[in-house]
C-alpha cells in the first residue's frame, strides 16, 4: 500500500532526525538537505538508503543529485511508488 505525501514527509523527517539530528518539525518541503538540514553528500546516501527501505522504492544514484529539497524527495518517492 502506497504512502501518502504526508506519510512520506513524516517518514523523511524521522530519517533526517536520526541521521543529522535535525528536529522533525524543521524538516519541511521547501528545506534544502545540504543548506538547511546539515545533510552532506555522504549523509544524503544514508537518507536515500533509509528511504528506499522504508517506502519500498528504488532511487538510483543518478537521480539522487536531483533531490535538492525535501519536497523533491517526497515527490520522487510518491511517483516511484506508483
Amino acid at each position: 500500500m502506497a504512502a501518502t505525501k504526508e506519510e512520506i514527509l513524516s517518514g523523511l523527517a524521522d530519517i533526517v532526525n536520526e541521521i543529522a539530528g535535525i528536529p522533525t518539525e524543521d524538516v519541511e518541503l521547501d528545506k534544502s538537505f545540504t543548506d538547511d538540514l546539515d545533510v552532506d553528500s555522504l549523509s544524503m546516501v544514508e537518507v536515500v538508503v533509509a528511504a528506499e527501505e522504508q517506502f519500498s522504492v528504488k532511487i538510483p544514484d543518478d537521480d539522487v543529485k536531483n533531490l535538492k529539497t525535501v519536497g523533491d524527495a517526497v515527490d520522487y518517492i510518491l511517483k516511484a511508488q506508483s
Partner: protein
Amino acid sequence: MSPTNRTVVVTGIGATTPLGGDSASTWEALLAGRSGVQVLPYEWAAELPVRIGAPVAVEPGEVLPRPLARKLDRSAQFALIAAREAWADAGYTAKAGEDPAADPDRTGAVVASGIGGVTTLLNQYDVLKNQGVRKVSPHTVPMLMPNSPAANVGIDLGARAGVHTPVSACASGAEAIGYATEMIRTGRADVVVAGGTEAAMHPLPIVAFANMMAMSKNNDDPQGASRPYDAARDGFVLGEGAGIVVLESAEHAAARGARVYCEVVGQGISSDAHHITQPEPSGRGIAAALQHLMDNSDLKPAEIAHVNAHATSTPQGDMAELKALRKVFGDDVDHMAISATKSMTGHLLGGAGGIETVATVLALHNRLAPPTINLENPDPDLDADIVAAEPRPLPAGTIVALNDSFGFGGHNVVLALRSVQH
C-alpha cells in the same frame, strides 16, 4: 633564539581513558592506584581466550552529539573528546580563528593511532556480508582511515597548518607528540594539538594479539592482570581511549598569558632493525633512542627524576627497557622514580603515548609520580627503583621526566619534559 630552534611548551591536556572521562579523573584514579581492567561486558567476549580489557570509563556516545558521533569511528570519537578538553584547558574559547589567540594558518593537529578505524572496517564487512551492498555506510572510508582522528580534530579546532598521523604501532602517540614538537620548533606552526587514540575492542584484534602470545590470559583476576615488572606478568591488557596535549611555542604561550605545564625538552628516536614484534633483548634500540635524546638536547642525566615507562607487562619488553636505561644513564637510574601506568590503564596501543604524556605532564606539574600497581613479587632481574603501590613525591627545583613508547616494528620513541617555575 633562532626561529628553527624554538622552545616548545605544553599548555593544555585532555584525555578519555579506562580510568576516567577526562584528564582530572584519570589522574585522580592513577594516584589512587585504581585499575581500569575488568571482565569485558560484551557478549562476544565470553568465548575468547582473553576475556579481560580496559574499556573507557565514559562512553563517547554520552559526550558527543549523536549526529556527529555516528559519522566517527570510536577512535576519532575519543580523539575529539580529548582534543576539545585539551583545547579548552589551554584557555582557548573557540576554534582557531574564532578565538583570535590562535591563528588557523599557524595551528596544526598531529593525532596518531596504531590501527585506525579497525572496528568500523570489521563491522562494515559484517554489514556487507549480512545485509548486502546497499547497506554499507557511505561514511566507511572516512571513518576507517587512520588519519581520520587527526583530520576530524583539525576540522573541529580549525587547524590549517598541517594535519598528520604518524603510524608506528604502540609508539604512535608519542611519535605524534614528537612530530608536533618539531613542527613548532622549526617554525612551521605556533600551536599544535597532538596525541594518540585507539579503539580496538573487537574480537578480531583481541584474538589476533592473544594468538601472538602477547596478551595476559589472567581472566580470573582482571585487576591483577597488568603487572609490569612482577615475576608473574604474562602479557599486556588491551585498553582504549585517547590522550591529547596542546603544544605551543614558548613565545606564543607567553604572548597570550597562557598557563604553562612544562617544557618539551626534546625527543629521542631509533629503530631496532631486529624483529617485527620481539623487542631487541639487550635494549640496544631503546638505548640508541635515549642516547639520541641526550645528544640532541641540553638534558643532563642528573635532572631526570621520573620515567613513565613503556612497560606493558610482557616478560621480555619490561626488562629490555630497564637495561637500556641502565646502559645509558648508569647510576643515575637510581634517582629516577619509574612508574608503569599501564598497570592501571592497560595498554592503549597507539593511544598509550598520548595518555602517558598527559600522565607525565601531570606528574611534573603536581610533583608526584603515580604508582605501579600489582608489583608484588618483583622480577628477580629488576634493577631499578619502581614506584610501587603508593604515589611518590618528586623533588623540588627543575626536574625532567621521560615518557618511553615502543612499538611493534621496532619503533623507539622517548619524549623528555622539563618542569617550569610557577
